[in-house]
């Protein structure tokens, strides 16, 4: 029993934190978001480091590491609210890797791993997937249906219309597809979506961590009535609650990532729990962060809104907290052990 990263994993986390502090500062996040385009130099650098292929087998040009390592990167990208197609590409890669045929994997994974041929994932409802990250720039789109099936489509076979969400740091599109468009992903789709949920949860944990740190720093610094506001319990207890929510979501997320690599029979419950916990935590923590900052927190200038908006949109991708809690309850009632 050792619930801590290995030395290598700690190194990955530290390196990612340091790199993104320089390459994805709030100034750069703002410039990219307001400019309506990703910072291409950031993406090129992430590709040179091999990040997009971190969890993809070496046979397909990836680094061959596990979901824990991918989750570490996703958490740090969330912490930096980085604008890049990393997340959508990673989620698409997980689906194709888990549910694709040998042929599909050989065709798509090498490009996903080096970032030259990007993938993404969308959830179809009534003939269209309304909010698909980076669909307009993806070479291949995984469309999930309500029955647990998945199809692989190329942009030419579907209609892709750019849409804009509250998270303007990310590109989204609406994808409309005929039911028989593209080809089916015939393998274990759930194994792919479970992993994708864990990665989304990790990004949400990173977002929450950043919002908490900014709030604590502000509460130490900002004085009213000649006292740092963090000395008032109404404020300090909000901050304590942020830690409570963030650490809880982190425990669930790391466990889900670990189980994907080491105990896959526990992954379905663990992934649903991680996504539910991280969605709730990240939305609550980023909302509290605005409250702790007071009026300044409500301004465009204060940068907190990048975190709040990313938390809101990430939390709703691949099913919100309630859908995951319903799944947890069903699995618990069916006697599937949580651990």
């Amino acid at each position, binding site marked *: *029993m*050792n*619930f*801590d*990263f*290995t030395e290598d*994993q700690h190194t990955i986390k530290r390196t990612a934190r340091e790199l993104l502090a320089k390459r994805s500062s709030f100034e750069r996040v703002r410039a990219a978001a307001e400019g309506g385009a990703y910072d291409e130099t950031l993406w090129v650098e992430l590709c040179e480091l091999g990040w997009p292929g971190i969890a993809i087998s070496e046979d397909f040009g990836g680094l061959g590491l596990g979901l*824990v390592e991918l989750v570490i990167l996703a958490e740090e990208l969330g912490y930096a609210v980085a604008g890049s197609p990393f997340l959508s590409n990673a989620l698409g890669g997980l689906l194709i890797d888990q549910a694709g045929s040998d042929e599909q994997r050989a065709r798509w994974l090498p490009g996903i791993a080096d970032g030259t041929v990007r993938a993404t994932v969308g959830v179809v409802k009534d003939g269209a997937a309304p909010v698909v990250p980076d669909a307009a720039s993806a070479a291949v789109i995984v469309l999930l249906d309500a029955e647990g099936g998945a199809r692989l489509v190329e942009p030419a076979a579907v209609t892709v219309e750019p849409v804009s969400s509250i998270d303007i740091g990310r590109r989204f599109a609406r994808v409309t597809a005929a039911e028989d468009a593209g080809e089916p992903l015939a393998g274990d789709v759930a194994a792919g979506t479970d992993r994708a949920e864990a990665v989304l949860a990790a990004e949400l944990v990173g977002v929450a961590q950043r919002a908490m740190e900014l709030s*604590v720093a502000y*509460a*130490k610094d900002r004085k009213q009535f000649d*006292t*740092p506001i*963090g*000395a*008032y*319990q109404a404020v*300090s*207890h909000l*901050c*304590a*609650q942020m*830690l*409570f929510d963030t*650490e*809880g*979501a982190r*425990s*669930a997320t*790391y*466990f889900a990532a*670990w*189980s994907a690599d*080491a*105990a896959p029979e526990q992954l379905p*419950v*663990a992934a649903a*729990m991680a996504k*539910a*916990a991280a969605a709730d935590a990240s939305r609550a923590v980023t909302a509290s962060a605005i409250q702790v900052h007071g009026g300044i927190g409500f301004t465009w200038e204060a940068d907190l809104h990048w975190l709040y908006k990313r938390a809101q949109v990430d939390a709703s991708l691949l099913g919100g907290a*309630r859908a*995951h*809690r*319903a*799944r*947890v*309850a*069903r699995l*618990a*009632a069916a006697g599937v052990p*949580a*651990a």
Partner: protein
Amino acid sequence: MDLTFSESELAFRDEFRSWLQANEVPPAPEGEDEQYRHRRDWQRRLYDGGWAAVHWPREYGGRDATLVEAAIFYEEMARARAPFPANVLGLLLAGPTIMTWGTEEQKSRYLLPIMSAEEIWCQGFSEPEAGSDLAALKTRAVKDGDEWVVTGQKVWTSGAQYSKWCMLVARTDQDAPKHKGLTYFILDMEQPGVEVVPLRQITGESEFNELFISEARIPDANVLGGVGNGWKVALTTLMNERAGLAFGLQVALKVRLDELTETAAARGLLDDPVVADKLGDLHVKCEILRLTAYRGLTATMKYGQPGPEGSLTKLMWSSTNQQLMQTAVDVLGPEALLTDSPWSFDLLRSRGNTIEGGTTEILKNIVAERVLGLPRK
């Protein structure tokens, strides 16, 4: 990261499981005195089997269990629905405090009878005017020859009516700053100056007592950790509070939650999306509690002290336990509020969870100040 038990941890678990199978837990009787005797008899069986104090060093009769093994021990106890040993305060609080601060004489005098349940211990810390602000306590001890004469009042003293000894913190220097003038004593409860008055709780039971101390006498040899050093010694006791219990409480919570989920499923209530949402939420929180407790253990083993996770598990457990009991009433309806339903007692008892062992507000202060580094008012 490896969230499986090692070979030796599994061997420890299997050994204790087979012992539990061979020593089936008898059903709990009705009545407080009967329940106390039930718990004392259970502790004696644990002691005879060598399982009473797994986390104690071998030299004091324990098993030198690692933190993970101690966690496994409490998880298995809860899974077998075994009661807490009668002398739980002695085993978890008094014993480790004596090991840290006691003289050789004190160690050889007190430790063995704690383990065998021969001598039960209670904790005399809180007072009517010193709850969260413990160092404001007023119980006085005045030196008289080679004895101390103690007068004051303690409250929330669980098990006092069954106890031989009390971990007592009293003020021995009226002039010193409030944290400096305290001394930690071992008080003999069997003397005329000590009166135990049951304190009836909202459950109707009297798990706790008030302690009226009037010129009770304590020999100088029963000072623990030195005169004027009581605050530090008391912190040792408080740090040990619930360190291991968290794992038992966590599993006990899971056992009840599974029971509720099963009942709800059998009645077709999981088709109600609100019920499914509430139960799903509890399962998520329950699992997060377990995982965070294990993260805390890893941090303690690696860095020698609990990380931020340590301060969070009590907060998580208490709020989740309350939420579980309230949800049970929502899901099961009014029959859960009848006095013969186990849920009605637990609903009432759970109100104490966010007060005992550090209120939620004090724990949030601790998290804010010591983990997040926010300023004190």
